[in-house]
């Protein structure tokens, strides 16, 4: 009888994870098209925002390590396979953002707008600088730091503005994901 109950709980846990993953896949596809089609044309001084950094950061903050790692790798490979010359830089940087998000979660409250904004600023900086540095090493070109920071400053501003605008939505989706995953974790622990 207990065994049957455990199997049912395990099924619920898998189903919860699956539902969260499917929703996140849809959100990723939506973000991809927003980034590629909408924000490529709506720029600030020719600079686009980076929605993927915010997306991976949110998964790391509200989700768990497994989900964060999974999406960092999948999304990173997807982006690199379309736009990258080598596959690996984006997934590696996304993984770093994902792990940083877990660390941020232990440091700051994710209910506060200001803390989310600070996390976005740090995550954007780490991702873009890391990616640029790795590209310069792999393709052996000189880093133009002044021009890079000029673009980065605008990109940071754009990302922060978007985070502030969509803070309510981010929090709502994040917490609903967290609740679903916590419930599934509860069942997994019981197993």
């Amino acid at each position, binding site marked *: 009888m207990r065994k049957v109950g455990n199997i049912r709980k395990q099924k619920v846990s898998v189903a919860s994870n699956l539902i969260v993953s499917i929703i996140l896949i849809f959100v990723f596809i939506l973000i991809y098209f927003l980034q590629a089609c909408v924000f490529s044309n709506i720029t600030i001084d020719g600079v686009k925002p980076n929605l993927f950094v915010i997306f991976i950061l949110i998964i790391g903050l509200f989700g768990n390590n497994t989900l964060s790692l999974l999406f960092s790798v999948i999304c990173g490979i997807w982006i690199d396979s379309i736009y990258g*010359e080598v596959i690996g830089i984006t997934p590696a940087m996304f993984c770093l953002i994902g792990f940083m998000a877990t660390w941020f979660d232990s440091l700051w409250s994710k209910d506060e707008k200001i803390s989310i904004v600070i996390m976005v600023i740090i995550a954007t900086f780490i991702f873009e600088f890391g990616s640029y540095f790795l590209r310069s090493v792999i393709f052996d070109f000189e880093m*133009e730091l002044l021009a890079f920071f000029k*673009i980065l400053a605008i990109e940071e501003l754009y990302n922060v503005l978007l985070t502030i605008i969509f803070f309510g939505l981010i929090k709502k989706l994040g917490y609903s994901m967290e609740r679903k995953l916590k419930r599934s974790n509860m069942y997994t622990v019981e197993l």
Partner: protein
Amino acid sequence: MGENRHIGLLGTIVTIVILILLILLTNVDTSEMSYIKSLTTKITAPVQTLFTNLKNKITGNDEYFAQMDELKSENEELKKENSKLQEQLIEYDILKAENESLIEKMNLTEKYSEYSTVPADVINKDISNYSSTLIINVGSNDGIEKGMTVIADKGLVGQITSVTEDTAQVKVIIDAGSTVSCNISTTSDSVICKGTLDNNQQMRVTYIPTDADLIVGDSVETSGVGGLYERGIHIGTISEIVTTTNDTDRYAIVDVAVDFSKLTTVLVITNQ
């Protein structure tokens, strides 16, 4: 008796005043009195409208409603006609765009007739602010291979870096990691053009020979050295020469000929 005389005089005066007023009013142009007309209309119009509506309702003015029905149906027909016309207009716009794209491709093919080329449309652009790549709608099925040169109407675009069955990725010359071996067309001096993060429409000319005499406005084209690009493809013109204390460190800025922000059609050179 005296009181009667006073009343008579007053009556006479009033009559005279009324007469004078009548004379004045009837001889003045009515347009000059429009403010009075406007005032009176303002006062009387709402009351008149109210009464007319009331009268229409009471007497059941069928004609008005019949006209309304007629107008409604006419309006519906016009709306339908309008939507049809709008559809036709959209179709026309699509055909016009297709036609323009085909003409552009044809002109490009004619211009670069010495090369065997495959025309392509740009279907996607890089999402990053720090790199410049394009995705075009031709791939290995169309004979596209990695390393092929991509050109546009005004000059060099870049090089194919990866290919799928139906698409190909192009590393654009303005990418920060892009390097092109070039010649200054007037002096034939060999230089290296590098992409820069500073500006999306410029490249930096480096490794300028110390004895090279560069002039603003000089044309820069591919040298073919290294085998990455075909020889003699136009890149742009020199817009600035930056001199330093050391002659070996001097560099120049090239304004690239191709407007990458508006690039829609390219040609892939297949007979390299």
